[in-house]
């Protein structure tokens, strides 16, 4: 199938406004006749639900959590970017656009990125109007800070809890619309299949996580805002329930999955300490504003870090990248940390960590100042590691954090299944091969507040809908498949809990499909994943009953999808014979160890098409053209 990204033409700065005018509208009196299902209540899902309900559409919102406010957006720490130029440091929509395209290593669609930059300012306005308590200057104006990959200060924040405050803002808008009857919220309901009728997305099948009951829900359009798939690596900074199942169900129903190999490894996480760990904890990138990354120059220097004199320290990011220093983008900082540790220069018991040192900032401004800016992060670190970061440097190491890949969408955020829209981290659209810090919150809210309300309206206005009966074969079939899926998991009746398979999968992914990938390792990984799948379906043990609150069924179903996604991710990484952003192929690097893109052969988004159980997926190419930001070698020196 030829992919049509439906990108408007004309000067890029006029495309979105012209397109908004060109799109069709639904008469206000007719809007309540349309139902839109939204799966997920993070920033993208909540903001889309509230905004579509305000327009008058009938919205059905689903979450596997009890409350919409538990979605994982809540855990985002550092901030949200916007091209406001409040501090007169030369910011503009153009510059945010440029930084994002370059930060993504020229693997994102220019028109989408420009639109994102264009609406960024409105997002801040919207959130402030909702009562989001952003950090302020003494005079009452909004404060900003810097993030990686940018040489200016455009990141708005609410202490170290920006995601929480933005999500609570969107949640408040959602709550108001639930109160007004525009949104019906279904908590503790997990989507287990997508219903496609006559080629259009027309509903979902959900499992009630308390009673185990399956039910079907029909609509005129479905929006998936179900987040990313970092947990395919088992250990990541994601919450434990984050999973890939919704997008994998859509994939198997015909939605293409793009660039799954673009995964982001965040440089500043608390290092792995042992097998007991269920997750890794992020220390916000904002800490790199005031922290300096270093390791001892001498191998095996086990002195207390405070006793290592300046001249015996290697501030390697400042040395290698004098202009961006500690604020290089995430992929660069992560790769350099791995390289330093691989050379045996890492610190801590395992040798798998580097210092992030705040001594200079504390000496300059005092502990109180530090606590005000980063108090919750400092406390969290202290509690987890039993080490006081005010007194000694933090130890950090990269960990899986975000996935740029996701379901392929066009300019309308519509997938290859008409009527199926995808928002936030679940789609692949705006970040290319690497996302800049503080851009995830921006994208989630841009999609939900300012893009979907227009594009979903256009779809509904332009489509003639036939009524779907609850007993139509596609509906009953999806429901039957969902039941069979659960029976299959229960029926294996082996000996090993799902968690153990997940761990095995995560180990393969991290070792061979992680920060540095090469052909041989990727081929091995694909073989090992196939084995894990075989063992899973032979030896899985799910205890308890399917007609009950049973977290083992939930987990087993998610792990089954992670295994399939893991294989697809490795396949994508193997096919992409270049390095770009978070995808680093050892075979393709410059003499200085930077990513070496191949724009001749790989300037496209790889959109993978499902072709049946056990069949190799089919590659479709969405060619990328750069009219405004001409790809160059990405330098942060």
């Amino acid at each position, binding site marked *: 199938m030829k992919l049509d990204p439906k990108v408007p033409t004309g000067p890029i700065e006029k495309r979105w406004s012209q397109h908004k005018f060109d799109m069709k509208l639904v008469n206000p009196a007719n809007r309540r006749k349309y139902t839109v299902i939204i799966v997920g209540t993070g920033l993208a899902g909540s903001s889309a639900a509230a905004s579509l309900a305000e327009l008058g559409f009938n919205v059905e919102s689903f979450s596997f959590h009890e*409350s919409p406010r538990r979605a*994982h957006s809540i*855990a985002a720490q550092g901030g949200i970017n916007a091209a406001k130029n409040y501090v007169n440091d030369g910011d503009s929509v153009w510059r945010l656009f440029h930084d994002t395209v370059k930060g993504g290593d020229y693997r994102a669609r220019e028109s989408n990125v420009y639109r994102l930059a264009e609406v960024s300012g409105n997002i801040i306005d919207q959130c402030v109007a909702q009562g989001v*308590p952003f950090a*302020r200057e003494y005079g*009452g104006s909004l404060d900003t800070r810097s993030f990686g990959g940018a040489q200016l200060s455009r990141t708005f924040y609410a202490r170290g809890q920006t995601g929480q405050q933005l999500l609570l803002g969107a949640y*408040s808008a959602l709550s108001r619309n639930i109160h007004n009857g525009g949104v019906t919220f279904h908590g503790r309901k997990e989507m287990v299949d997508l219903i496609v009728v006559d080629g259009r997305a027309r509903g979902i099948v959900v499992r009630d996580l308390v009673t185990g009951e399956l039910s079907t829900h029909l609509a005129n359009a479905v929006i998936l805002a179900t987040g990313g798939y970092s947990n395919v690596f088992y250990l990541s900074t994601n919450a434990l329930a984050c999973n890939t199942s919704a997008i994998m169900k859509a994939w198997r129903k015909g939605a293409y999955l793009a660039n799954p190999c673009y995964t982001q490894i965040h440089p500043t996480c608390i290092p792995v300490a042992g097998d007991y760990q269920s997750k890794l904890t992020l220390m916000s990138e904002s800490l790199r504003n005031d922290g300096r990354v270093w390791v001892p120059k001498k191998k095996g220097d086990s002195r207390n870090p405070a006793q290592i004199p300046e001249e015996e320290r290697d501030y390697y990011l400042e040395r290698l990248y004098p202009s961006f220093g500690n604020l290089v983008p995430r992929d660069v900082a992560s790769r350099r940390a791995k390289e330093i540790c691989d050379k045996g220069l890492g610190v801590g018991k395992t040798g798998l960590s580097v210092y992030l040192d705040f001594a200079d900032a504390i000496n300059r401004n005092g502990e109180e100042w530090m606590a005000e800016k980063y108090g919750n992060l400092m406390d969290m670190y202290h509690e987890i590691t039993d080490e006081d970061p005010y007194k000694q440097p933090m130890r950090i190491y990269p960990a899986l954090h975000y996935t740029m890949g996701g379901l392929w969408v066009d300019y309308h955020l519509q997938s290859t299944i008409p009527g199926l829209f995808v928002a936030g981290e679940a789609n692949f659209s705006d970040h290319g091969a690497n996302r800049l810090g503080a851009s995830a919150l921006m994208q989630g809210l841009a999609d939900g507040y300012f893009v979907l309300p227009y594009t979903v309206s256009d779809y509904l206005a332009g489509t003639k809908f036939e009524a779907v009966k609850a007993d139509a074969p596609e509906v009953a079939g999806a429901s039957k498949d969902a039941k069979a899926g659960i029976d299959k998991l229960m029926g294996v009746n082996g000996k090993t809990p799902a968690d153990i398979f997940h761990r095995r999968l995560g180990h393969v992914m991290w070792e061979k499909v992680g920060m540095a990938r090469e052909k041989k390792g990727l081929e091995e990984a694909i073989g090992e994943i196939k084995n894990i799948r075989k063992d899973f379906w032979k030896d899985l043990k799910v205890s*308890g009953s399917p007609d009950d609150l049973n977290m083992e069924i939930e987990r087993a179903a998610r792990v089954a999808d992670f295994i399939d996604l893991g294989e697809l991710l490795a396949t994508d990484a193997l096919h992409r014979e270049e390095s770009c952003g978070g995808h680093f192929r050892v075979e393709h690097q410059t003499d200085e160890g930077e990513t070496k893109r191949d724009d001749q052969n790989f300037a496209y988004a790889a959109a993978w098409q499902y072709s049946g159980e056990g069949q190799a997926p089919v590659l479709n190419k969405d060619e990328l053209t750069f009219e405004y930001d001409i790809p160059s070698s990405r330098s942060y020196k």
Partner: protein
Amino acid sequence: MDFKLKVWRQKNRDDKGHFEDYTAKGISEAASVLEMLDVVNRELVAAGKDPIAFDHDCREGICGSCGLVINGGVHGPFEHNTTCELRMRRFSDGDTIVLEPFRARPFPIIKDLVVDRSAFDRIMQAGGYVTVKTGQAPEANGIAVPKKIADEAMDAAQCVGCGACAATCPNGSAMLFVAAKVSQLALLPQGKAERKERALAMVAQMDKEGFGSCSNTYACEAKCPKGVSVTHIARLNREYLRAGFGSK
């Protein structure tokens, strides 16, 4: 480290429930209480037994999903942490640890350690927002908020909605939860237009859900993972009185 566990097991809402004994062996002192339960559950599943159900998600103290009564204390015997943040090094090797669900009338038990806290969502739906539609909101810097006020609003806004305040209150009152939102929005200029309706509607919904009254024991502040201060309850009381007397 090794522990003896007494865990509340309850099949469903109607079951009476009972304690069961388990042992947790070889637990790392850096593991959290929930990571210890993961180990116990892995063994239960492998043995074909029903694992212990408990709510959890982010495991870094921000999503508000987790919440256990541990040795009689909400989120454990210490102050200002969530259950997922409580590490085993705070206990001694060989300790007996008692795990129960949050107990408050408006939080019915769903299964084992999982409770239904949707009452909090309904309180928010009653008025915990500023009525503003998506669209062309005024320029963000057009609304000046002095730093001191913004900071105080943020102190209140940090509430993670875990329910510890109500679970620890001898009266089962949700005043700290309601106060956190009312206070945040009363402090900010954006929230002032609806302050009267908000205070009345949220308090009315709180009462309707069956939460008790506040008698100033301050237990809520002590156990709040974010240390939200009871001074916000004082502000809620002022907001409520002011709304009741019809002044603006």
